[in-house]
């Protein structure tokens, strides 16, 4: 096992607001990030991901718990320890780039070295190297305002890697870029990580971005950790309904389980033809992806195509199941017409308990912060 680079132990952060009272922004976060890993923290706004990153960086103190960087405690409520950000030896890239407009590209990138009193020849050499890594060579004397958004973000990246930090914190670094550039930068970032071997902690609300870049991901909601796993496992085996819907298009079906058979709510005549989970309750949510539902076979629930929508890369069908409708996505070559009958079969679905509605209210409250 690789060495632990960043570790959070029972980290909690409370804010007191005037209008909403106490808010637990981050509630008992514990996780470890290993050397050379790319670890994403993913969640909707208000889930605590940015607060978590800012505590690791040292911009926020924590209310409870401990944070370790390379085995060294940097924040600890018990030891009343707080190491300021400038002494944590991290690299960080922000969403709004935060390149200093009053300095040239060279001065921006040289700043961390000059603060560390590195001698001039060494500064020259290392800035040059960092600029080469980020394809900015030749732009040394240009001011950031003359460069594109993508180039400005590269300056921020060069500035972050120039001191060769072991850990790189990325706070939605790609979300200010246009979609095409975002993809290129994502690739370059991985490439750079492979070359320089730093650990990445990447905060984002964009699940596809997180999946593309991460070795492991943490999904959080309302200040709590929901699940930590690899992108594949998170997508295929989400632990609850929230994680399921956050990681991709989801189809949720309310089902009734009776006598070892699963029925869609509203139709207790025709079973769905899937095996119930071992710990089945009388009412459950069956969850799956619209592209994981088969409608071409000879088995499954007998129904018909109610609506057909032709999209660029797939066809979507709305199919009634009892009192509900499910969305099914298929490649274009599977062509049903409206009104055609079909058989709906669920492949390896997930099962969740019926959710309480208070969770939605709490989410709305937290958005206001």
């Amino acid at each position: 096992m690789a060495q632990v680079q960043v570790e959070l132990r029972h980290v909690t952060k409370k804010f007191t607001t005037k209008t909403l009272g106490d808010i637990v922004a981050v509630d008992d976060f514990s996780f470890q990030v290993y050397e050379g890993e790319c670890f994403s923290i993913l969640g909707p706004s208000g889930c605590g991901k940015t607060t978590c990153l800012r505590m690791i960086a040292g911009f926020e103190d924590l209310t409870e718990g401990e944070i370790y960087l390379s085995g060294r405690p940097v924040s600890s409520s018990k030891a009343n320890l707080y190491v300021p950000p400038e002494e944590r030896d991290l690299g960080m890239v922000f969403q709004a780039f935060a390149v200093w407009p009053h300095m040239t590209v060279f001065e921006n990138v040289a700043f961390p070295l000059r603060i560390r009193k590195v001698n001039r020849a060494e500064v020259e050499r290392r800035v040059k190297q960092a600029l080469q890594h980020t394809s900015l060579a030749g732009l040394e004397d240009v001011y950031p305002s003359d460069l594109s958004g993508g180039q400005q973000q590269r300056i921020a990246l060069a500035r972050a890697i120039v001191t060769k930090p072991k850990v790189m914190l990325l706070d939605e670094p790609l979300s200010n870029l246009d979609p095409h550039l975002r993809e290129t930068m994502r690739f370059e970032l991985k490439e750079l990580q492979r070359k320089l071997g730093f650990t990445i902690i990447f905060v984002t609300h964009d699940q596809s971005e997180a999946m593309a870049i991460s070795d492991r991901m943490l999904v959080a909601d309302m200040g709590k950790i929901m699940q930590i796993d690899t992108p594949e496992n998170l997508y295929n085996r989400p632990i609850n309904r929230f994680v399921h819907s956050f990681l991709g298009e989801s189809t949720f079906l309310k089902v009734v389980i009776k006598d070892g058979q699963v029925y869609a709510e509203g139709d207790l005549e025709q079973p769905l033809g899937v095996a119930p989970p071992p710990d089945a309750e009388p009412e459950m949510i069956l969850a799956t992806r619209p592209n994981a539902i088969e409608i071409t076979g000879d088995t499954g629930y007998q129904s018909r195509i109610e609506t057909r929508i032709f999209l660029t890369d797939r066809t979507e069908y709305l199919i009634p199941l009892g009192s509900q409708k499910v969305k099914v996505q298929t490649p274009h070559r599977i062509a049903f017409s409206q009104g055609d009958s079909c058989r709906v079969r669920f492949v390896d679905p997930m099962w969740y308990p019926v959710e309480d509605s208070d969770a939605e209210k709490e989410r709305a409250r937290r958005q206001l912060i």
Partner: protein
Amino acid sequence: MINLRRKTRDLAVLDGRRRVGLDSIMTALSFVLLLVIVVTPISMIVYHAFFHQGQFSLDLIIDQFTRDTTVSAMWNTIKIAILVTIFGTIVGVFYAWLLGRSNIPGKKLMRFLFTIPYMFPPFLGAMAWDLLLNGRSGYLNRWLMKTFGLSSAPFNINTVWGIVFVELSYYFPFVFMQVVSALERMDPTLEESARIAGAKQGTVIWKITLPLVRPAISSGALLILISSLAHFGVPSILGFSQGIFTLPTRIYAVIARSGGSFEGIRQGAALSILLVAVVALALWIQQRVLRSGGYDIIKGKSMRPTVINLRGARIPLFILALTTLVVIVLVPLGMIFLVALVRAYGLPLIPANFTLANYQRIFTASGTLESIKNSMILSLSAGVITMLLGTMVAYVVQKIRPRGSSVLEIMSVLPYSIPGTVLAIGVILAWSGSLGLNLYNTLWIILVAYIARYLSFSMKTSSAALLQVHPSLEEAARTCGASHTESLRDITLPLIRPAMVSGFFLIFLPAMREVTTSVLLYGPYTRTLGVQIYSLRDAGMMPQASALGSVAIVLIIVVNSIVNALNQTRKGV
């Protein structure tokens, strides 16, 4: 086709070109009025400075410019302006940082208090400090001399440094307000990334924060420089008795000494050329500096800026800020109100010597009451007329955009860069008979000067509002069947009405306390509030001058509260 051609243009552009209508009338009217109100007085100064009885001659200019008094006045003007700018900038930046970025207590209230000097007339402040620290008779000086048995006054406000001190206490808000808003809107990650890069808090302030707000600092500083160069009130009150003159006060003295004769006014016109040249140089520097600068430091979502914990220094710095507020706001205010109550100037400021007789006297004396009435009439009418004129010019410049609209724009903002003293001389030269119209000694001449002086204020507020009214709003009205005039009346005007109201108060307030131009333009029956305070003081009637000053302050505070209340309930653009 037509639609393609005028993609981004206003319907008004087409209307204006198509037929003789409201738009062409407004365009013509704007040109004529600006020529009369702005261009005429300015050309008269230039003409009289360089032409004598129809002959071009540099004699007057050379004679005036080479006098020792002129040279020393010019150096005083420049010296005072530069010192005020330097110290005003330091004070402004320091407090902007303290109130914008530190955890000093009472931030909100102090921020408001620090902008008070902005609405307070500086010449009243000068008067208050003169009452307190006059080298011969100042209250504090006499008390110190008596208490410690000193043979001479320890302080003397009637010096260049005294003038600098008083001016800076009224001008530092220019820098303060600009910088505090820049600091608050600045993207906090700019500073955070420096912390991550290894810089300590102090280094971040010096290397990142201050350089980033430098454009805000320099634009505020140049505003101080230009205002101070043209400033009349403070040096006239503190400098005259000691023979310390600046160019504006020297111009006033030359004219006052000649009893308003034509020769005196010609000399004043020649000196005006010099003053305008000095101010123009400062304006040129301002243009250069402002063009070069301006970083985009406001990015992305608004986030709260990093607040710096002052730790042990929190309370001492709080006390320092409070002391500053007491010195620049409370002490002058208190002096005015206390001296207003005292039976005779010089008597100790104790309740036994207090009386309301001064108020009784100023409200029964016809001259004083009339001055309040005059100022009210002048400020109201200047406010209304200038607001309407400014809005019309703004509409022509922004929406109709006729040929020569940039000339119109320049004409309307030109008087802003002309010192009030100079403008007054131009108005005298133009409207006291030489062009066939004699308004001298009437309220009209002061009104014309006020309109010229404040036109740029209303022009700027209305322009900004009109730019926010998207052409599609008027277009929608037109497709609903409204004529151009109707859509102007029912859509555009109601939308910019709040801006017009605040434009009115932007003129009304400074006009109420105006002294620089009126002091040169008033006649026996046309004294304004400022002039009356000024002459009461000149005549040695300090308690009455203070009483009237306190009335002016109360008026200003009342009107200001009305403005604030209006601004809070404001709708539209």
